[in-house]
């Protein structure tokens, strides 16, 4: 079995630039991840906040031995957003397309396909690989059987699976943070910065359900595939994606690395992850082929 690698997905939340920079500095020095995805995926209005520090962070990560991949917006519709995406394709780093609108700009160049492009089967994967895709991060709702079928047929590309963190479930033109505060998207005053892991959404019967992050809706639960990690490696997945949160992500990466290296039992690893993120509930339902909100104990 070839060594499975870890990636740190693009930060989905609105963090202040200083926190953002400090976070990636620590990742550069300490996190056992091979790939780091950088760039705003959710809301183009947030881009100016960290664009000044972006070059430094890229350099720092590359000095730390990480491969930096630049992620594109998931739902570009405005002209300025589309222009930004086209410009991104010129970067010297590999680019992760999170919308089909990126593909014409990347055709023929090695690139990555993000989890926001709907790749549900091997035929779609092959078609993208033929167009130059070298990495494909699958949609988080795919069950293990589908992941296996795609990974088994995706020669020429590395298959990546969402393994830790709140699961992106939906994206909209409407900003729910702004709506909740009685503002429009254009005059949002960046209220999403209050919630560095997303704003929890409960039902009227107090069930913990979702989290909102600007125009994005995520799961309340954190996906946690620590028990599935070995099996994913066996079926041909080459990278597990860890999605940044405020909890100790270096610690999370170390636990996953240890499990993949047979240096830690899965059950002990689960206890360690619970200690790192004590206030969260974990889920693995999507991978297990049931509703995503549940954790299937095996």
């Amino acid at each position, binding site marked *: 079995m070839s060594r499975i690698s870890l990636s740190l997905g693009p930060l989905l939340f609105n963090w202040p630039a200083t926190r953002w920079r400090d976070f990636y500095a620590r990742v550069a020095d300490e996190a056992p991840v091979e790939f780091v995805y950088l760039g705003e995926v959710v809301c183009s209005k947030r881009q100016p906040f960290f664009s000044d520090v972006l070059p430094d962070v890229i350099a720092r990560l590359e000095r730390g031995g990480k491969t930096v991949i630049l992620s594109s917006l998931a739902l570009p519709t405005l002209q300025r957003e589309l222009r930004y995406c086209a410009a991104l394709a010129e970067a010297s780093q590999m680019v992760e397309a999170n919308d*089909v609108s990126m593909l014409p700009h990347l055709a023929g160049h090695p690139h990555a396909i993000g989890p926001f492009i709907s790749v549900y089967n091997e035929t779609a994967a092959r078609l993208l690989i033929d167009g130059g895709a070298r990495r494909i991060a699958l949609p988080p709702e795919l069950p293990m059987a589908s992941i296996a079928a795609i990974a088994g047929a995706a020669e020429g590309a590395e298959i990546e699976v969402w393994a830790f963190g709140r699961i992106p479930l939906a994206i909209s033109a409407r900003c729910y943070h702004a709506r909740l505060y009685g503002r429009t998207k254009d005059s949002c005053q960046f209220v999403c910065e209050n919630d560095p892991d997303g704003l929890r959404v409960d039902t009227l019967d107090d069930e913990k359900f979702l989290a909102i992050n600007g125009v994005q809706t995520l799961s309340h639960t954190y996906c946690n595939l620590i028990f599935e990690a070995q099996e994913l490696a066996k079926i041909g997945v080459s990278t597990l994606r860890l999605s940044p949160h405020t909890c100790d992500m270096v610690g999370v990466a170390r636990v996953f690395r240890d499990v993949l290296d047979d240096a830690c039992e899965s059950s002990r690893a689960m206890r360690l992850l619970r200690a790192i993120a004590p206030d969260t509930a974990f889920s693995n339902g999507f991978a297990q082929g049931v509703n995503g909100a549940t954790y299937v104990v095996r």
Partner: protein
Amino acid sequence: MTPHGPRTLELVCPAGTPASLRTAIEAGADAVYCGFRDETNARNFPGLNFSRDEMRASISYARERGAKVLIAINTFARAGDPGPWRRAVDDAAAFGANAVILADLGLLGYAATTHPRLRLHLSVQAAAASADSINFYVGRFGVKRVVLPRVLSVAEIAAVTRAVSCETETFAFGGLCVMTEGRCSLSSYATGKSPNMNGVCSPASHVSYRQDGDCLVSRLGEFTIDRSDSGRPVGYPTLCKGHFRTTAGQGYLFEEPVSLDARRLLPELRTAGVTAIKIEGRQRSRAYIKAVVAAFREALDALAAGTAVPIESLASMTEGQSVTSGAYRKAWR
């Protein structure tokens, strides 16, 4: 030609059953969209959709009356099992469907290669919201028409329509998805059944209603979606129309249980260069189809004739008993 006078915008109407298809055509539909009775289409609901025989007969019925039939095969083929989706495309081509409505990259590739003469429409499930994205599908697969995601304003629709090399179709009435379709896993998160993979959203098999004193509690899977006091209109517990709570306030966080009615925007949509308008509701009854299609036929004929049309309310047909113009007005965001 159907006997409805000059065309302005093509009226594309839903049909969940052969009887609904006949009703829609009698009420003035230019085209009807429908699906096979399996998970290949995004309205895979119990008791709904067309057997192969029904589809063949319905296409003949429509053709005799000058109406088109568009077959939606707009879920994403299951990995390792593309057979049912490919057969659906093959049969649609064999039956003489006017077009198939697809979303899956793999299936688009299959259809374009195997049936080069079959007209391809890009489903709203493909979430192609920009000219760059749409032109990718046109260039790669020869897509002839795109159904625009319900996230664009009228001005954006006009800009996209100008910049793409295919026709555009846009929703004008019915249930409103607030999330970008084809990229929404809310339903599978709560129930394990997804629009993309299983063709269902907030499936009836996971819906339950419970009377709690004066309150009607609607639940989906393990989650309460709404509590309605008696007398207040009630919604089907579609996730994104639910009433939820946060530390910063509670309410219909995503969207009120309302429906889209864009009749007042028809002149603007025509000016924007849109080719066709679409009515949502393959899961709805003949009574709904008849009322909504007739109202739109009247509105479009008046638009063509340059006369004003009194827009009578269709709110009683809709969820929440009220209507909105949705993302077509930018303030919606």
